[in-house]
């Protein structure tokens, strides 16, 4: 069990209103990702759920129980911190056992749970080491191990992968997804990296300045962003947002077209552009172009597309996949 309900939750630090008012429903067993730019209040929201910060107003319920004023330990949640927050003077075994020891569990039961967690996380060979003797990825796993032995009703992750290098981040992403599939426990995950959000989430919550911009599955957000902010935030490379005559012709203030929905050709097309930067990744080619009468455009070609700086390329947007937005930045549904 692990459903979390936020109703009209708000938080102010002195004069600053970090979170004006948020309503959110997190269902049992869901993998929910809070994503947004730095300072959007996503970490604060997580800390409010954890109980490490007190709410200014509103109510938090876990499994229907009002925990708004409950201490962190009473909420039955486990948290994995960005800095891992391992206890440096304790061995890996003692780190993982710490929450159980605090719960006054019997030593034999503790040993068994620690062994199980170490087995799941491939830490069995490192149990006697100190955190200082481990690599970043191993420390991350110890932090996760310390969280899972408690069998919490939900896991909270605060940007857990941001201190790892790119390759390790990919591996850990898979491991956490795998862990979620095994445990089927609710997970709330905070990140500013939309790739992590897209790949891991059942449900993404896009936050901006303390407000929820949109809630939905990764593909919902990708296919039908509710407004300009979500359109620009979800997707990599970013959606091209065009204003001016082309947008007017399509009956919108702004028109968005994703880089992967632009056809490229060296001979003919709707627009004519000059390559300013070409990124050849092998599997994809990203072209950053200056288009006459439109402005800068990013386009993606699958596979290798032979173009380099200064070349002329013709582009044709897939007009069935355009996103149109009105004056207020809200999406216009056809």
């Amino acid at each position, binding site marked *: 069990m692990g459903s979390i309900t936020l109703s009209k939750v708000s938080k102010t630090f002195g004069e600053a209103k970090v979170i004006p008012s948020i309503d959110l429903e997190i269902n049992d067993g869901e993998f929910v990702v809070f994503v947004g730019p730095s300072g959007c209040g996503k970490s604060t929201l997580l800390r409010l759920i954890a109980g490490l910060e007190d709410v200014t107003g509103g109510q938090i319920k876990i499994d229907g129980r009002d925990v708004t004023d409950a*201490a*962190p*330990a009473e909420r039955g949640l486990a*948290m994995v911190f960005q800095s891992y927050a*391992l206890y440096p003077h304790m061995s890996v075994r003692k780190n993982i056992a710490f*929450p159980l020891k605090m719960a006054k569990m019997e030593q034999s039961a503790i040993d068994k749970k620690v062994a199980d967690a170490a087995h799941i996380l491939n830490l069995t060979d490192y149990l006697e080491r100190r955190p200082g003797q481990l690599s970043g990825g191993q420390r991350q796993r110890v932090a996760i191990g310390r969280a899972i032995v408690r069998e919490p009703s939900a896991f909270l992750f605060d940007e857990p992968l941001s201190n790892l290098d790119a390759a390790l981040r990919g591996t850990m992403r898979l491991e956490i997804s795998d862990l979620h599939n095994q445990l089927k426990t609710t997970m709330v995950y905070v990140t500013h990296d939309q790739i992590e959000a897209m790949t891991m989430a059942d449900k993404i919550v896009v936050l901006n300045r303390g407000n929820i911009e949109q809630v939905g599955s990764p593909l919902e957000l990708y296919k039908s962003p509710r407004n300009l902010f979500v359109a620009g935030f979800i997707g990599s490379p970013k959606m091209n947002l065009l204003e001016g005559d082309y947008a007017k012709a399509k009956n919108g203030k702004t028109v968005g077209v994703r880089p992967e929905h632009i056809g490229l050709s060296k001979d003919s097309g709707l627009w004519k552009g000059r390559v300013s930067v070409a990124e050849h990744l092998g599997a994809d080619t990203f072209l950053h172009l200056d288009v006459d009468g439109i402005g800068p455009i990013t386009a993606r070609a699958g596979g290798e597309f032979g173009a380099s700086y200064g070349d002329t390329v013709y582009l044709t947007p897939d007009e069935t996949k355009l996103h149109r937005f009105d004056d207020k930045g809200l999406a216009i549904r056809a």
Partner: protein
Amino acid sequence: MATQNTKTLARLMMAPSVIVLLVWMAVPLAMTLYYSFQNYNLLTPQNVSFAGFFNYQYFYTDPAFFQSIWNTMLLVLGVLGITVIGGVAIALLLDQPIFGQGIVRILVISPFFVMPPVAALIWKNMIMHPGYGVLADLARFFGVQPIDWFAQYPLFAVIIIVAWQWLPFATLILLTALQSLDSEQREAAEMDGANFFNRFIYLTLPHLSRAITVVILIQTIFLLGIYAEILVTTNGGPGYASTNLTFLIYRTARLGYDVGGGAAGGIIAVVLANIVAFFLMRAVGKNLDK
């Protein structure tokens, strides 16, 4: 070649300070060693002769010798106990956000700036005096017989005074260590269900262990040589009740005019201090390697 030149030059440049330091250390030690083997009493300065180990035997068989060593140990351990425990407690309090934090911290640290004889005189005449001390006033207010600190508990009185002087030092070091504790670790422990007491035992205290080691090492070095506080308060008495090793050496050399005996006592003190340092480093110095 260039590196070689730089190295030679660097050594040349450093040489004067190294030599001065060496001379500064070695000459007094050598002179003390020399005098410790001489019959040299200032009352009869013309009768200077080689004494062999007589001075050592004389100092060692002094009836006050073992008591002074015992007093030295009590003094060091007593002050260490009060300052480490009190320092941790005060540092924990000072770490809380309070109004007027800056002023409070300066006030707490200020005893360290009072020089030892002055501090001891103030304690002797204004606080612990059985007639007009503050403590005597308090005792009378409660209708109790005032304590004559320096007559009834001379060593304990000295311990209190010295501890008062060193408490700010311990507090300061421990407070800075406390402030370097990662807040996420504290929050993680909070999530793990550790209450304040458990967080202190399992998180704060291990984090402070290195700072406590530093406090113990530095204070021990200074506390072995406590002298001024004893001189201005009890003068080592009554009897030898508050005489430590340093004070016994002073007594032999300056009150007994026995330069040879005092020098021998000095050498014994150096040897003992090194033994203490050796065991101390083995016992607590490990903490510094982590």
